[in-house]
Each structure stands twice: as structure tokens, then as C-alpha cells.
């Protein structure tokens, strides 16, 4: 036993990498998935969108790049599907230059495929990217069309029917930020939601989520934290709108490998601690 623990203590970390890789690949191939239960913090976002009257205005800011697509894209797609299903007016934009391809992707994968009858410029608009971080939100706070003078196709936003009545951020009914860092949810709360009293909700990477919990529930209506948050939103969306079952399951599927990988990591943490205490090195360090 002692020799085994000694070998565990001296294990080459590359074996751990291999174990994690297998813990992800095998469930992916086996399409392993587990039931997902929606928690109140995610349910709040769903309920808010579900209860909004037709034609309400929603900013959907995709503040993430390709590096966090596996976490953020399922959130963005699920929220966009839900909003369009409820016939809300959706204003897509991004504060990240690398967010432009993500908006193009949802145009192709969600808007063109699931909602071909919804018109760009009337039911939704892609306002594209603006440099300036929180400065853009600050500018849009008092002059929204001034901050976004053209949409992603180069059309003057003042000529678009969807921009009728939109002067400032306070004219919107909901702000949802799908983000992975700075600028993102925190800036939307500070410069958009708090001063205008427009509710803010978010879907963020797991790394970002603990930093945003203090804003919930007064400054942040709801929060999708990481892949689990995305899976919870997909679960509640599919439960209420089964027509999206085939297309809105990405995060739920990815939670299978996630669960197995977590079990492997927990096993390694327990083994590592056992090896540490069995080795007796902790006694020497204490002395």
C-alpha cells in the first residue's frame, strides 16, 4: 500500500492529462448525458423572457470570443431562440471584436434556420461590434443610435423600423449579456442596468460566475454560470418548447463528459491527498 501511495505521489502529471482526455473523449463517443434540473437563478431568466409582452425590446450582447464558444454559444442560442419564440425585438451587439463571428454564427444557425420569417431590421438587428468597452455602454446610455450608427450590413440604423422609439438604454426592457470577461456583464450592470433601472441578466463562463454572484438578485436578475447554467436553460427551454429538442441540447450533451471528468479530478485529488499524508512529508513541514 505504501509503495502504491509513493508511486501515486510521484506520478508524472502527463498521466493525469491522459486520464482527463479519456474522461472527456469516451463519454463524448458514448453520447453519455445526465438529467439536468433548472435552478432558480437560471429559471428567473427564463421566466422573465417568457413573461415579457410581444414586441418588448431586448439587448443581447455577445461579449465573448472563439475561445469560450463551447460554454457561451449554447447560452446565446437558447436565449435567442426563446426571445424570438416570444416575438421580442432583439438587438444583437458585441463589445468584443472577436464577438463578430459569434453573431454571424447565430444569424446562420438560429435566425436563418429556426426563424426564417423574422425580418432583419424589423424583428431583430445585428448592430455588430463597437470598440470602447464600457465607454460604448456609457455612450449608448444617452444616445443609443449615436453609439451604433450602422448595423452589421452597413445600413443606417435610423432607417430601420426596429429602431423606432429607441433613443437610449432606458428604452429597452431587458439586457442580457452572454460574456466571458471584460468588458461584459459587470460593465452592463454598472453602466447600463443600474443607472437606467433596466433589468440585467447574464450567461457567463464558469470562471466569471463567482465574481458576479454578489450582484444577484437585486442588480442581476439571473445568471447562467458556465456549461451547467447553459444546460439548465436548455432544459427549461426544451421542457416548455419541445420543438427545440433536437437543436437546443448542445450544453446538455456536453455535461456528460463534464460530469465524468469531474469525478476523475475528484479521484485524483483524494488520491493525491492520501499519498501526501501517507508519505509523512506534512509532518516534516509542520515541524
Amino acid at each position, binding site marked *: 500500500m505504501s509503495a502504491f501511495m509513493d508511486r501515486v505521489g510521484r506520478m508524472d502529471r502527463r498521466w493525469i*492529462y491522459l486520464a482527463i*482526455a479519456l474522461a472527456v473523449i469516451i463519454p463524448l463517443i458514448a453520447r453519455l448525458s445526465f438529467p439536468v434540473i433548472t435552478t432558480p437563478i437560471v429559471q428567473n431568466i427564463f421566466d422573465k423572457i417568457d413573461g415579457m409582452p410581444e414586441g418588448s425590446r431586448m439587448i443581447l450582447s455577445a461579449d465573448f470570443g472563439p475561445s469560450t464558444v463551447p460554454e457561451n454559444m449554447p447560452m446565446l442560442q437558447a436565449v435567442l431562440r426563446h426571445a424570438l419564440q416570444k416575438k421580442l425585438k432583439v438587438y444583437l451587439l458585441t463589445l468584443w471584436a*472577436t464577438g463578430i463571428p459569434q453573431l454571424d454564427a447565430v444569424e446562420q444557425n438560429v435566425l436563418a434556420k429556426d426563424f426564417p420569417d423574422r425580418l432583419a431590421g424589423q424583428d431583430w438587428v445585428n448592430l455588430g461590434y463597437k470598440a470602447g468597452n464600457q*465607454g460604448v455602454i456609457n455612450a449608448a446610455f444617452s444616445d443609443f443610435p449615436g453609439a451604433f450608427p450602422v448595423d452589421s450590413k*452597413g445600413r443606417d440604423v435610423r432607417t430601420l423600423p426596429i429602431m423606432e422609439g429607441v433613443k437610449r438604454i432606458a428604452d429597452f426592457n431587458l439586457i442580457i449579456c452572454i460574456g466571458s470577461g471584460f468588458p461584459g456583464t459587470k460593465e452592463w450592470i454598472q453602466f447600463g442596468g443600474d443607472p437606467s433601472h433596466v433589468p440585467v441578466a447574464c450567461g457567463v463562463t464558469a470562471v466569471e460566475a463567482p465574481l458576479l454572484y454578489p450582484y444577484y438578485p437585486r442588480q442581476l436578475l439571473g445568471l447562467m454560470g458556465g456549461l451547467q447554467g447553459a444546460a439548465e436553460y436548455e432544459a427549461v427551454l426544451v421542457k416548455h418548447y419541445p420543438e427545440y429538442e433536437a437543436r437546443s441540447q448542445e450544453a446538455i450533451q456536453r455535461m456528460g463528459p*463534464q460530469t465524468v471528468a469531474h469525478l476523475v479530478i475528484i479521484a485524483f485529488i483524494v488520491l493525491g491527498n492520501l499519498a501526501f499524508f501517507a508519505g509523512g512529508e506534512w509532518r516534516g513541514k509542520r515541524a
Partner: protein
Amino acid sequence: MTLGPWLEMWVGALLTLMILSFLYRDNPFYRFAESLFVGVSAAYWMVEAFWTTLVPNLFGKLYPPMVSFALPALAKNPPQISRIIPLLFGVLLLLRLVPHLAHWSRMAMALAIGFAAGTNLVRYLESDFTSQIGQSIRPLVVTQPAFSLGGTISALVVVFGTLSGLVYFFFSKEHKGAFGKVSKFGIYVLMISFGAAFGYTVMARISLLTGRMEFLGRWISQGFTFPG
């Protein structure tokens, strides 16, 4: 699959494998992919900022016919002469590149820093300070709309966790006796929150790994069929 996406898939797959090769050991393929990523990212941000911000928000407003080749929709708008001010400050900022005129850039820098500090100060103070204090002041027993045991426990954790965490960072009194015990509880609260943050970080990294593995799976299944 057409040739363009097929090539994209191959470039993406090879670069992914180059980056993952670092897990075995540092090597030239990894360093090539890393350098390529840094260079492409910098260029991408610069080009996008120019075409999506400077062109429509500055040139397109200062003298709209100037951008008619790219944004014909703006060409008929009246010029906004006031935009010459941000243009002037932008030029001043670029004077950093001319050694004997570099001191002029300080004016633009001072404006940018002053503006950012002023707006950030107010917003941070309101959203991250006063509102956060408000978030911590809540009923310890949740009875609205009905009694909630979970809500009550949550409120107790928030209030006493916040207070004990603050006590830990209070250094004007020695951490002894009851004060010391509260401070020690504060450390446990901090450690639990760090543990939760670490757990979330693990979840994030595994999510990204899953995404890459899915992509490599698509590459293996589709990438070896030449587009026809």
C-alpha cells in the same frame, strides 16, 4: 463540404494539436502556434476597431461622403464638425510615435484617463459599493411570500459570511477571543469561496476541452474526405 470550410477545419485542427502538444512538453510547434495566435489576434482587433468604430463613428460623421465606398447609407447624412475634436485628440495620441512631439500626446492621454476615472469612479461607487451594502442588508428570516428555510439559510450565510470576512480583514484589533473566532470563521468562508471558484474554473476548462475534442472528432470524421 466545400474547399473553404475544409481548409479552415484542417488549419484549426493542426493548430489545436500544436497547442495541445505542450501538455507533453514545450516544443517548436507549440511556440509557432502561440506566436501565430498573438500576431493574428493583434491584427484582427486593430482592423475590426478601424472598420467598425473609426470608419462609421468618426469619419462617417465628420465627412460622410468619405465613407460612401464602404457605408453608402451614411453618405447623405449632414457632416458633424464637432467630430474634429476626437480626431484631433486621436492625432495627438499618435504623436507618441514622434519623439520630439511626444509630449503633446499627454493632453489626449490626460483626457482619456480623466474621463475614464471620473465615470468609473461614480459607477463603481454606486454599483459595487453602495448597492453591494444594500444587497447585504436583508431579513434574516425569509417570510415573504411564505416562510422559506432555504432562503433563511441563504440570508444567514450572506450576512454572517460577509461580516466575518470583513472582520478577518480588520487589523486594528488583535484577533483574539470572540473577535478571533469570528475572524477564523471568516477565513473558512473565504476558503470555501476560493474552493467554489476553483470548482467553477475546472468546469470552465473541461468545457473548453470538450469543445476542442468535439471539433477534433468532426475533423477526423469529415476532414479526410477531400471536397469534391
